[in-house]
Each structure stands twice: as structure tokens, then as C-alpha cells.
């Protein structure tokens, strides 16, 4: 019974934890410009993150090594160092976007200028990282994030033309007023939003925080394989909301208030309050995860002691890294940069950096010296090779498309 509850809790937090500011913004922007014609990318991204998270979780559980320990060990110091620089900077960009997202959501709730919320949000995230138990932190933000289900409810309340939504999703074509380059640029952005690298740093390091062993593989697999697809459904619901309300008016989503507008139209004040709680929880949870990931990546590369299961004094450099990362994120946001723009860039750069972490995990997941009998099976490897191609192509195409489309504008 206790086991069953554990599984249920894991699934629920995986659903709530799947969504972050990247998913919220990218899906809403895409919905408002392309309708559901890019919904297939969410499916591709969800299958990808299931595959990737499941592999990295298994590697962490069996070999006792988190992602960056493996990268350092398997790629050597030079290649791994270049990898670290790229991964760390992109993670920092994501952290900045998430903290900005918290501030924007709090602004919606309070009408107080986001720049007054930013230091408060940064401090709150840091305090939780410093003081709260890992499992509490995970479960509270994950469960509160479930309130984003209100996006799915809103789709029904808005009473859309189901036939037109269905045909957009099932037989996707590039909308007449958009170019093919923009279409593919946003396809990569959506893919990057679903498969952000920090999820994998966090997932594998979290496996160590919670002291998983080979016995926990089955449970973690269920969490991922059930939780993430439901998260993907919520992603599509966000896009559908934007498609129903904004696409016919040709309005492009560029602020958080627009992202929640369909929910407010459908369900009134109460729904709006619920969705704001959901967005604060999702961005706060993701800010915790990216904040911790900045410490995880650096500490694992340099071999410092890390982890929230140690007292901060015993993992001083790990905690110092997170403090500095948080100060940088807050500092960047205080320059009045638009967090929505930061988010749009962070998801594309996530897609660019993905092969750097994917390849080492794939190699190690096949290495019996690390994995013993728990190496990848044939089916996993076949799928993993297909995704290797997808990930490399998306990564290589991202920068040219970014230049051609002027970052999607």
C-alpha cells in the first residue's frame, strides 16, 4: 500500500513537475501562431524525455553516478569541460527565465511591478534550496503544479471547433501567413522546451539524493512513463487554449497575462486564481531544479561533495555555486530584460546543447562495466538511435534557423 502511494505521488509530481516557464511560453506562443499544427512535436519531445530521463535515472540508480560525473569520466577533462561550460550557461539562462516567470506570475496576482518581485522570488528559491528537505520540495511544487490542469479544463469550457483543432493536430500544414523557416524554428523550440537538459541533470542527481538503487528502477520508470505524457497533454492544452482564443484574431502571445487569458475567459476569476497558483508552483519548482542543477553540474565535474542530503557546511562549494548562480539570475533580470524573451532563447539553446548530455548517457547506459545486467535493451537502443539523429539534427538546424527567422519574429 505504501509502495502504491509512493508510485501515485511520484506520478503526480512528475505531471506537475513536467511543466515550466519554457513549456508555458513556447506552447502558448506556438498555439497563437501555428494553432495545433506543431502538437506532434510535443509528442516527439515527450517520448524523447521519457527515454532520456529513464536512461539517466537507471544509470544513476545502478552505477551511483549522476550525469556530469559520467560526462567527466567518459569524455575526459577537455571535452567534458567544454560541455560543462555550455551546459552550465544554458542552465543559468533557464534559471533566469524561471525566476522571471515567478515574478511575472506574482505580478499577475498582485499588480506589483515584477522588478520588485524578482529579488523576493530569488531569495525565496534560495531559502527553500538551503533549508527544505529534498522530498518535501519536490512533492509540494509538483502537486501544486497539478493545478495547471485548469488549462485542459479551459479547453472544454471554451467550446472550440473540435473538427478544426483535430485537423490542425492530425494533418499539420504550415499556416499560410507563416514561413516554413519559422515553423521549423518553433518546432525546435518546442522540442527543446520538452527536453530541457536540466531535467536530466536534476533527475539523475535526484536519484542520488533519494538514494535509489537498482530496486527502484521499476518505480522510477512508471513515474516517468506515466507522468511525463500527462505533462505533455497539459502542454498541448496550453497550445490549444492559445489557438482557440488568439489564432483567429492573429494575436501573437508575448506576455504571461496573455497566456492565462483563455483560462480567465473560460472560467472567470476562480480559474484565474488557480492558474496563477499553478504557474507560481511550476516556475518555482523549476527554479529549484535549475538552481540545484547549477550546483550539481559544477560540483560533479570538479568532484566536490554535493547534494542536499549533506549539510550545507559539508558541501560548501556546491551551495556557494547555487548562491552565485541565483545572484547572477536576479542581476540579469533586474536589467529589465523581458523574461518571456529569455525563455524563448533558453528553450532553443537547450535544444542546441542536448546532444552534449544525451550521447554520454546513451554510451554509458550500454556499458556493462557501469550497468551490469541493467544495460539498455534492443528496443530502447533502437529508439535511442532514432532520437540521437533527431537531437543532432535539431541541434545543428537551430542556429541557422534562428538567424534566418530573426529568432522567430
Amino acid at each position, binding site marked *: 500500500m505504501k509502495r502504491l502511494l509512493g508510485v501515485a505521488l511520484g506520478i503526480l509530481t512528475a505531471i506537475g513537475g513536467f511543466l515550466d516557464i519554457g513549456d508555458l511560453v513556447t506552447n502558448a506562443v506556438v498555439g497563437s501562431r501555428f494553432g495545433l499544427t506543431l502538437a506532434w512535436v510535443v509528442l516527439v519531445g515527450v517520448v524523447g524525455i521519457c527515454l532520456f530521463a529513464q536512461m539517466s535515472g537507471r544509470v544513476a540508480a545502478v552505477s551511483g553516478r549522476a550525469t556530469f560525473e559520467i560526462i567527466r569520466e567518459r569524455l575526459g577533462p577537455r571535452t567534458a569541460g567544454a560541455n560543462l561550460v555550455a551546459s552550465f550557461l544554458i542552465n543559468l539562462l533557464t534559471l533566469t527565465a524561471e525566476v522571471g516567470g515567478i515574478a511575472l506570475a506574482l505580478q499577475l496576482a498582485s499588480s506589483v511591478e515584477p522588478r520588485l518581485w524578482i529579488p523576493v522570488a530569488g531569495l525565496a528559491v534560495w531559502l527553500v534550496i538551503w533549508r527544505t528537505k529534498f522530498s518535501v520540495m519536490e512533492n509540494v511544487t509538483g502537486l501544486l503544479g497539478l493545478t495547471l490542469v485548469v488549462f485542459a479544463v479551459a479547453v472544454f469550457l471554451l467550446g472550440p471547433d473540435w473538427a478544426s483543432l483535430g485537423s490542425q493536430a492530425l494533418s499539420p500544414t504550415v499556416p499560410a501567413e507563416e514561413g516554413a523557416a519559422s515553423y521549423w524554428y518553433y518546432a525546435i523550440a518546442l522540442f527543446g522546451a520538452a527536453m530541457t537538459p536540466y531535467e536530466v541533470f536534476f533527475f539523475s542527481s535526484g536519484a542520488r539524493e533519494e538514494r535509489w538503487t537498482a530496486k527502484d528502477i521499476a518505480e522510477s520508470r512508471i513515474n516517468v512513463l506515466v507522468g511525463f505524457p500527462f505533462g505533455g497533454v497539459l502542454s498541448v492544452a496550453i497550445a490549444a487554449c492559445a489557438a482557440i482564443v488568439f489564432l483567429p484574431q492573429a494575436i501573437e502571445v508575448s506576455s504571461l497575462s496573455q497566456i492565462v487569458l483563455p483560462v480567465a475567459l473560460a472560467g472567470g476569476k476562480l480559474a484565474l486564481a488557480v492558474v496563477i497558483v499553478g504557474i507560481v508552483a511550476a516556475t518555482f519548482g523549476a527554479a529549484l531544479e535549475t538552481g540545484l542543477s547549477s550546483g550539481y553540474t559544477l560540483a560533479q565535474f570538479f568532484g566536490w561533495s554535493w547534494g542536499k542530503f549533506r549539510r550545507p557546511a559539508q558541501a560548501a562549494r556546491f551551495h556557494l555555486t547555487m548562491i552565485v548562480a541565483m545572484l547572477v539570475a536576479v542581476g540579469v533580470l533586474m536589467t529589465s530584460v523581458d523574461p518571456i524573451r529569455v525563455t524563448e532563447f533558453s528553450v532553443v539553446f537547450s535544444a542546441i546543447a542536448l546532444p552534449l548530455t544525451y550521447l554520454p548517457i546513451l554510451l554509458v547506459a550500454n556499458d556493462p*562495466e557501469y550497468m551490469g545486467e541493467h544495460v539498455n535493451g534492443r528496443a530502447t537502443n533502437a529508439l535511442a538511435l532514432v532520437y540521437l539523429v533527431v537531437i543532432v539534427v535539431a541541434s545543428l538546424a537551430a542556429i541557422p534557423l534562428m538567424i534566418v527567422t530573426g529568432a522567430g519574429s
Partner: protein
Amino acid sequence: MILGDLLDAPVVDSSGRVLGFVVDVRLVLDGPVDGLLAAPRVHGLLVSPRTGTSFLGYERTGLDAPALLARFLRWRHRGSFLVHWTDVEVASADGVRLADGYRRWSPAIPGVAHQRP
């Protein structure tokens, strides 16, 4: 010179023909007990025509999954070989020269559990 200096050093045969680069040094622990462990002895050098991705070591381990990647990485290091230390005439960071009549051995590590023939 430390052992690490040998890595990436060019390898030539006695006539000066370039054979590749040192990508690894193989040690065996069969010396007299030195402290807690047997003293290591240099068994030989691994020479490969290229240095990139040699760190992954697919030509040494017999690991064959995921199939396409393993095949590609092994193919990149085709022609790599092990040369016994006794066949090494000069070894310095600037380069390694092999003795006349040196012998090329398989780069595979013998006796690894998952090795497939």
C-alpha cells in the same frame, strides 16, 4: 617525463614512417608487492591512426551496443594496435620510435567479461 606526456605523441617505425599516435598506455599489475598493491609494469602502448574519440575506447572493449554507434566508433579507430614495451626503442613526449621488426597485437583487452569474439 611523466607517463601522461606520452599520450598523443606520434609513433614512427624504424624507417621513420608515421604509424599513428599513442592513445593509451597499458599497464599490468604483476610486479612485486609495493605497499598494498603489486607494482605496475608498462606492458605496451596503444597506437591509433587518430586521437579524437579514442578516450571512449570502443576498439579496446568489444562493446557492441548501440550497434551503429559502436560500429562507427570502432571503425574510426580501425588499424589501431597494441605494441609491446619491449618493441619500443625511443619513447619521449616528442615521439615514439618502434624497433625494427616490431609486432602489432590486437588492441582488445583480454579477459574482459563482456568481450565478444
